[in-house]
Structure formats: structure tokens, C-alpha cells
């Protein structure tokens, strides 16, 4: 490998470590187990969404509906527990079902109805943003809320459900690692293994690169594509569950930035290890990268708008570095 190859492969990782080193020196309290956990926790929900959208990127698609799936799942969880007064299990199952169904519908629209992916999932996004607010007429869902018909909803978030957002596992230090971080790590490993080391994952890459060739080689291309959207939907709904568990209510104003942040993480993933294609490991690193950046800037008292600015600049610079050097796409 030449120097350039090394730069492409490890440039991003070096940048990441450089960032950590810089913040470690410049920002008090940046280096500590708690701070590390905090970074993971701050990106857990977007990270889970980003991993899901990676699956659709792999088959050459895109899913703009993930943010709204997550918020719909959050509202559904709250509705099931607070209004319908059901337990945590029912709430979780309801959320996962929503994710799977939305994914199926997205996949069906794209595969069988041949609606372009951006379009189908954009429509789905608008639809869900509206739909999730209809049962409560736009109100947030919390114990004791007044329903549109004037009755009062008396159910509450079950403790088991809230534990998903609040329980912390001991890990050397007591009460260190929150459930959401464990969920993120497990899902990241799962989807990474699935995409890289199972034949289904490989086939999904084949579908994404050349659908027709994959089909002629005997792959059930349609099924693969639909599966990708189902994965994306289910992951988004898991993100929604975590969100609901952390908030303890169905809040209509939360989750606005999930889509863009998740997409950013997945796209940054292209640059990791010079992959230049969607990949789960990259996505996870991408999410982490954004988390570290924002945490470091916060600790340095940078105002919110400079955080956006720096995020944009670093993203652009990192990617120019990777793509310009790698020369993918040039012949």
C-alpha cells in the first residue's frame, strides 16, 4: 500500500483520534468513562436509525421516513401505555410492528409500484408526521392528559419501559452503561455481521450495485429490497422506543433532527476506512464522530450555531479528503 492508500484508509480514523486528543487537551472533563458513555448515549438513537438507513443505502435505495417512523413509534408507545393502559411489552411490540409495517409499505411501493425511493419515503414521511398526531389531535401524550373527547388518560409509562431509557448497567464503575448504548452496540454488531458475513448481506450489496445482474444470477431481488426497508423501519422504531423511554412521554416536538443526523452519520460512514460505500462499521463510527464533535464543542462552550457550522466544515473536509484521494469513480 502506498502512502496515499494509507491516507485514504486511515485518514478518517486519524482525524477522529486527532479530534479526541484535541478535546482532551482543550476541554476540561472530556476524558473520563462517564464522558465516553455520555457520547455514546447522545448518539444512541440517531445511531440506531443510521444503521437502519444503511441497509437501504446498501441495496441502492434511501429512506427519508426513518425520522417520522421513530417519532410515530414514540407516540404509539405513549398511546399504548397512557391511553390504552397496556404494559411495556405491548408497547414495544406495537412499535416494532409499526416499523415493520411501514418498512413493508415502503418496500412495496418501491419494488412493486416502482415509485422512486426518495419519493415513496418522502410521501411516507409526510403521511406519518400527520398520522401520529391525529389520535390526540396534536397533543403530546403524558399521564393525566385530556383527550380530544374530554376524558382524562390515566395510564402511565410502565417502569419496565422507562428502564429501557434509564437503567444503567454496571461496568467496572457501577451504573455506568445505559441500556440505549447497549442496544446501539448490539444492533451495530448485528447489522455489521449481517451485511459483511452472511450471504444475505453480500447479496444485498450485489442488489445495490447491479440489480439486474443479481436477478439474473437467481437472487430474489424484490424480496431483498423489501427486507432492506423493513430493517430500516424496524431499526427506526427501535430508535423511537428508546426515545419514548428516555422522555417518558409522547412529545410531538421531539425527534425533528433525527432524520438529518442519521443520514449524516450513514453518509460519513462512506469515508471510514476508505470504503466509499455504505457500511455498518462506518455508520457507527460516523455517528460517534458527530457525537464526539458536538460533545467537545459543548464542553468548550461553543454556541449552538457554531456547532452546526463546525459539523458542516468537518464533514466536508473529511469527505473531500477521502473521496478526492481515493479516486473512486475516476477512470
Amino acid at each position, binding site marked *: 500500500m502506498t502512502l496515499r492508500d494509507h491516507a485514504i484508509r486511515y485518514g478518517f480514523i486519524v482525524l477522529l483520534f486527532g479530534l479526541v486528543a484535541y478535546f482532551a487537551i482543550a476541554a476540561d472533563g472530556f476524558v473520563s468513562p462517564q464522558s465516553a458513555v455520555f457520547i455514546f448515549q447522545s448518539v444512541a438513537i440517531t445511531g440506531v436509525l443510521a444503521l437502519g438507513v444503511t441497509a437501504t443505502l446498501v441495496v441502492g435505495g434511501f429512506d427519508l421516513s426513518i425520522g417520522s417512523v421513530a417519532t410515530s413509534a414514540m407516540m404509539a408507545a405513549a398511546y399504548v401505555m397512557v391511553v390504552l393502559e397496556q404494559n411495556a411489552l405491548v408497547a414495544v411490540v406495537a412499535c416494532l410492528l409499526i416499523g415493520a409495517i411501514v418498512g413493508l409499505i415502503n418496500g412495496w411501493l418501491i419494488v412493486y409500484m416502482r415509485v422512486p425511493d426518495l419519493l415513496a419515503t418522502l410521501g411516507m414521511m409526510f403521511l406519518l408526521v400527520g398520522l401520529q398526531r391525529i389520535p390526540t389531535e396534536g397533543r403530546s401524550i403524558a399521564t393525566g392528559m385530556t383527550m380530544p373527547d374530554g376524558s382524562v388518560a390515566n395510564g402511565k409509562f410502565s417502569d419496565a419501559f422507562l428502564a429501557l431509557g434509564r437503567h444503567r448497567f454496571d461496568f467496572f464503575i457501577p451504573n455506568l452503561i445505559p441500556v440505549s448504548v447497549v442496544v446501539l452496540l448490539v444492533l451495530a454488531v448485528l447489522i455489521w455481521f449481517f451485511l459483511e458475513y*452472511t450471504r444475505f448481506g453480500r447479496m444485498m450489496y450485489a442488489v445495490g450495485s*447491479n440489480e439486474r445482474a443479481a436477478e439474473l*444470477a437467481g437472487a430474489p431481488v424484490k424480496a431483498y429490497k423489501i427486507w432492506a426497508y423493513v430493517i430500516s423501519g424496524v431499526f427506526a422504531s427501535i430508535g423511537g422506543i428508546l426515545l419514548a423511554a428516555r422522555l417518558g412521554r409522547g412529545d410531538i416536538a421531539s425527534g425533528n433532527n433525527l432524520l438529518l443526523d442519521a443520514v449524516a452519520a450513514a453518509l460519513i460512514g462512506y469515508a471510514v476506512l476508505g470504503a466509499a460505500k455504505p457500511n455498518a462499521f462506518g455508520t457507527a463510527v460516523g455517528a460517534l464522530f458527530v457525537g464526539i464533535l458536538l460533545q467537545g464543542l459543548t464542553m468548550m462552550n461553543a454556541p449552538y450555531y457554531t456547532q452546526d457550522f463546525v459539523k458542516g466544515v468537518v464533514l466536508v473536509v473529511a469527505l473531500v479528503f477521502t473521496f478526492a484521494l481515493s479516486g473512486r469513480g475516476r477512470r
Partner: protein
Amino acid sequence: MVGNAVFRAEGLRKSFGQNEVLGGVSLELHAGEVTVLMGANGAGKSTLVKIISGVYERGDGTMGLAGHAFAPNTPAEAIRAGVVTVHQNINDGVVADLDVATNLTLDRLSGSGAPFLFNPARVRREAKAVADRMGLAIDLKARISDLSLADRQMVAIARALAHQPKVLILDEPTSSLSSAEADRLFALIDRLREQGVAILYISHRMSDIRRLADRIVSMRDGIISGVFDKKPLDYEGAVNAMLGRKIQLDQIVVRDSAKIVLKIDGLRIAQGARPISLTLGDGEVVAITGLVGVGKTALAETLFGVRKPLSGTMVLNGKPYAPESAGEAIAAGVFLVAKDRGENGIVAGFNIQENISLPFHKRMSRFAVLRRRLERITARRQIEELGIVCRSEKDEMSALSGGNQQKVMVARWMAQNAGLFILDEPFQGVDISARRDIAAKLRASANGRATLLFVTELDEALETADRILVMSEQTIVGEHRNADVDLDRLLAEVAGGPLHSAA
């Protein structure tokens, strides 16, 4: 022979919209036999293949495989039933972003019996076995997108041959292979034939057909127009049946040129290659032949300005010529029919008319506004001129047969007069009569320009050119006037280079 038909089709029909492409085709394939399917461009060969392999839904008719009804709804079903196909479009056969090993085992990944886990080491092992059978020497870790067209073709073929198919269908498999690679393929086909596989082989190359055919089926306009299975096979009859007329074999009259159009001096196109010097004359048709990968495309692209020479000068019509881009080359009157039409030529979103006018927008517009009437007239003229089979100039390119798509590419660049006309593998997938037609058109219109042809098939050079140059190791190694050619010397020059350079 009727008794042991492995595959049988009865009355297959297929229409695209109003356009009936197959009008009741009946076909039998026998175990241990190579059936060659011949037919002019657009006769419906590929359509037939796609029905058999489960890509298209059939309009009407029945099929049977080994005595059972056979009606695949998807390619996967056909493959599972033992009908394996290598399709005409090479890029439908390989996945460009994946490596060679994965491509060689692609079908196993989606098979039902395949292990759940993807073990790169095992896949590479399996891929090596597949490659070895075919005698394929490609780096298994290379990405397909870094391979030449020929190597991609070989990967797709190797994968298909690795199956133990009952029926193997090869749709123009040699269209971008060199003769050495083709020979390897033929040896394998022989082996499969001995093992009792029924093979359907489609080609426009008579040399392939002579080498392989046990039986020839001719097709014309969507129906079977002749079946030839008496030894010795009646090749001429088969060609006549497919064309519906006799083909005339005019011997070409070699011309010499007095006026120099292009003069190349000391041009080096690759590191370590010897420089190239040559001249092309007005009215002359020159063919450059050589094995795959010897630098023919590189030279063509250098002349056309999309690749920079390492050194050397060119003079075009007395003026120094050093194009920086295709645009400059075109402005200077240098046109290139690029090879691999799917990747380098066809704009899929455009219809025939828009594809033809593509390089000449500037000449076909007034104040930047395109003159559509002029576009239409030009397209109609070119369709007429080259005998492109289509409904109208508004047809989508995807609705044309492969050979007709190729003709559109040639028609595009013949729509205006060139000073230097370069054609890189222009006969890819073009049927025998159309090939003669195009060659005749090229020769007839040759005055006023220099014509330079890059072909791997020696026959094509012999049929078309006044002069034949041989290329090896990125340089010109021999020159022959196309009258009483010393074939032995020529072949020796062709083989002079390495037998097969990587990629």
C-alpha cells in the same frame, strides 16, 4: 433424434405492445448437442432466450424440461430447474462493485442450500475452483469495475459453466472475447457437451458456428425459418434461411491513398511501450487488429482526446493536432464510435433520434435552441441508411435489439462528415449481413476522410480494410496491404505479444 429432447418449446409468442416479436417459435434442444441459433439483428433471439430463462413472461406457448412442464416465473426458478443462461448484455452478468470471487459465486449466495454465513476464505476457494475450470487467470480480489469487458464476460461465463446445468444458453458469449479466450470457451463447451448438457449457442460469428455447431436453427422475424441437422451442416443454407435471401460476397477492391490526413509521429500511449508512427490517407480504410488488451482502445481514445499520450505528435490535415477533450476532437472533425455501447454510447433516457443527434447539438441548433425537425430528418435518414429495425425514430433504445443498438451508435457518428473516423469494435453484436452493410457503407463514404477501425476479429479486418495494422504491447508491430495478405506472418505478429495481459 426427437425422442431425447431435453428441452422443448412449442408455439412461443411474445409481443411488446403492438409489436409481435416472437410469432410462434418451436424449439428442441438435445442432450449432448450444441444447437446454434442464427438470426439477423432483431430476429428475436435474445427475446426467446429471456423467455426460456424466466426473465420475460411469455405471451403464449408451452415449454417442457426433461419431460415435465417448465414455466419459470423468475430467473431463480429457471436456474433451480437447471436452465442456466449467459445473457447478451455483459453488464447484466456481473456486479461491478463486488470483487471477482463474489461474482464467480454470486448464484450460490442466493441458492437455497447455501450456508447462511459468508466466509470470504471459502468463497475465494470456491471461486478459485470455478476459475480454474475455465482456465481463468484473474486476480480474485480485483473489483469487476477495474476489469476489461473481456474479463467481465469471462467471469459471467465461468459462473454459468460452474453449474451442472441440464440446459446451457449462451447469447453471443464471444462478442468481446479474443480468439485465445474463445478457444478456451470452446474447449469447455466441448467438455460439457460430452457430459450430456444441452447447449443453445447464439452467435453472429461464422468461425464460432463452424467450430461448435451440431445443429443449426435459423430464425427470421420471430419465426423459425430453417433447421439444419444433416451432416455436413449446410452453413450457407442456414445463413440464407436467416436472411431470407442470398448474401453476396463482393471481394473488396483495395485502394491506396495519395493525400495524407493524419500523421502520427512517435506517439507513446503507455509506460515502457515503443512509440507508434503511422499515417492515414484520404479515402482509406485502415484496420488495426490485435489481441484484447494490447492497447487498441487506448490508442483510439488518445486520438480522440480523452486520453493523453506520454509523448509524440499528431498532425491532422497539415495542422498540429493535440486534442484536450472529446469536444475538441469532434470540433476538429475526429469522430469515435466507442466500444461497449452500453457504457460509452447509449443514453438510456433518450430515444433513437436524441441519441443520434447527441454529439452535434451545436450544429443542429439555432441560438442554442435545438432544431427538432432537423434532428428528426437526420434520424430518419440514418435509420434508413443503416437499416435499423425499429418502429420509429421515437423508439426508446431499450426497445431495440442489441445489434440495432450498435447500428444506432454507428449511425450517430455517420450523421455528419468526419475528417478522421475512428470505430472501436463497431461490429460488436452485429449480424453478418448488417456487418457487410456497414462495411460497405464505410467504404462507399470513405472519400474525404480517413477511416480507422479497431477490431479484434481478423475476419472483420479482412472484410473491410484497405490496410491492416497489427498491434501488440501498446504499439504497432506490423502492416499489411489487404491484398494477398501473408496470413502466417500476420498471425505471428498478432501472437507476438503476451498471450493474455491482465485486465
